[in-house]
């Protein structure tokens, strides 16, 4: 057998294994969400591989739960708050770090990512304690601030590379034409950085949307609940797996949709034609 087709078969099998590993939990999740209880609690006989008795009952049940709507709205509010705050803080920081040779630039960057150097479960203890002292537990502000802490390093890093990809000549050209710093930032740099910044914003939204540990410690199972906390809450009552699977599907849909959008935004070549 020629080497090339042997290579092809090896690659193909590796690809199929990887695909199986990635897709099978997803398949099970969807299968569970669509199955009725009797096809999951089979009383000892093996659970069938294919969904039978396909039903949307769990979805209908979920959609009739008023708490479900309130947690979705909470999750959206917190995610949008996190996006706004991280962008307002992160974009100017990214610009400054990308464009100016600040003394201690590397140290600043290290400081910014330090939160992410520790496992979330380790860093949340001091953060939660600190937030509680500031009376930020069980508040939107608190959880938005906490999520911003997590998102900011990503926003700054993605933002930095977005600004760095804009040729310096454009700024200098605008300067010679009489534009001041603000005019240059808003009419030249920001429009050109938009694709990168949009990606950062989407990423931040998703990060907040499916964040669990920080939300759990700051909100507990109190008044304000998010979708991830709702899932945890249902989990503690040992409910039917098909309900859990349904909640998980609802949690995943925006992630999948936004990830696809993100890919579209990651288009290269927006600055082509400006220099050379």
């Amino acid at each position: 057998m020629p080497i090339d087709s042997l290579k092809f078969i090896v690659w193909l099998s590796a690809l199929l294994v990887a695909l199986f590993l990635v897709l099978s939990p997803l398949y099970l999740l969807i299968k569970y969400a669509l199955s009725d209880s009797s096809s999951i609690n089979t009383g000892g006989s093996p659970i069938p591989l294919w969904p039978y008795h396909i039903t949307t009952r769990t979805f209908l049940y979920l959609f009739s739960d008023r708490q479900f709507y309130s947690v979705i709205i909470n999750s959206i509010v917190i995610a949008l708050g996190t996006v706004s705050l991280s962008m307002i803080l992160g974009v100017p920081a990214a610009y400054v770090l990308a464009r100016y040779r600040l003394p201690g630039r590397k140290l600043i960057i290290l400081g910014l990512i330090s939160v992410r150097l520790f496992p979330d479960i380790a860093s949340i203890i001091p953060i939660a304690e600190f937030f509680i002292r500031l009376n930020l537990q069980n508040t939107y502000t608190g959880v938005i601030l906490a999520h911003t802490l997590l998102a900011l390093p990503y926003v700054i890093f993605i933002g930095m590379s977005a600004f760095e990809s804009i040729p310096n000549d454009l700024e200098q050209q605008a300067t010679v034409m009489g534009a001041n710093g603000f005019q240059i930032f808003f009419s030249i740099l920001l429009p050109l950085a938009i694709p990168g910044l949009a990606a950062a914003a989407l990423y931040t939204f998703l990060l907040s949307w499916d964040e669990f540990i920080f939300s759990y410690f700051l909100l507990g199972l109190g008044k304000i609940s998010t979708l991830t906390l709702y899932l945890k809450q249902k989990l503690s009552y040992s409910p039917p797996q098909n309900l859990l699977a349904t909640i998980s599907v609802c949690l995943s849909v925006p992630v999948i949709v936004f990830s696809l959008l993100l890919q579209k935004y990651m288009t290269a070549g927006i600055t082509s034609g400006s220099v050379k």
Partner: protein
Amino acid sequence: MADVVVKGISKYFGDHQVISTLDLEVKSGEFVTLLGPSGCGKTTLLRMIAGLEKIDKGDLYIGGRRYNDIPAQRRHVAMVFQSYALFPHMSVYDNIRFGLKIRKAGKEEIKRKCAWALSLLNLDGIESRLPREISGGQRQRVALARALVLDPEVLLLDEPLSNLDTTLRDKAMEELKRIHRQVGKTILYVSHNQVEAMTMSDRIALLNAGRLEQYDTPRTVYDEPRTLFSASFIGSPAMNIFEGQIEHEDDVMGVSTPIGFFVFDKEAALRTQAMAGSAVTVGIRPQNIARADHYAARRYSDTMVTLNVELVQSLGDRSLVVGRGENDTVIRFLVTREDDIGPGQRLPVFIDGRKIHLFDPLRRTNLFSK
């Protein structure tokens, strides 16, 4: 329109001095090319005039006003970058309009000036295209339109033609000259290309290692190079350079070199009277060397030199011949393409002694310039 005066300007990048006490005066409406090899400081000088680089020492005057401390935004200069630096997210029209909008020009004024610039540079019809949708030549013209529309006192151009292919470049040169005649702006043009400098400039400022080597009209720079650098940088193919010694021979003043003795004309003889015996560097342009058999008679000033042809390179209508004379002296000269010359041939040539340039071998300056 304004004149530009550079007085004793120096510039350092760290410990490295890129420009050392440079003086330059550009008259109002003049087209001056800053010419030199890469790293000679020409772009740095241009950027200092634009306000993009700090002036470390010396003074800059534009229109009689000291400009050192005026920020780039408030200088009445426009600059075209080598990269053109068109704003990629703006249409051609928005690019051209940008500076006027920043300067808060009225709607009518913007419309009038943009229309003027578009037609001056033949850009009508592509106003709404994005920079990535137009050709290299068009981008170069948009960059120029964007600068001219601001009606600057001085127009700074940083190698604007270096990204164009040869045919486009020739066209762009003609166009740039036409525009200069039409708008009469003071233009400072940076280039490393001597053809661009020769064709377009009123005067050439030749820079080398941060110093001004020569500042003259293209003709003077070509005919009377002040330094050995000028002599070897300007002119194509490059000047032949070899060593020699000023001598009296049979009552005739001249220079003796490894390839022969060249007779001075009256003036050169007079000026070198006291220098007999001193070493000199000799330069002769390939254009001043001709095949001996093409002359009906040898002139008094001609010296016949026999060369071994090593290489013949076609330049189209002419060919460049690389020959080797006595003592391994390499001599380049031109022949017409009808001349049937090939490597290995022995070829007698006439070198006109009146056309040779003499340089001080130590100071590397022209012996005859002040």
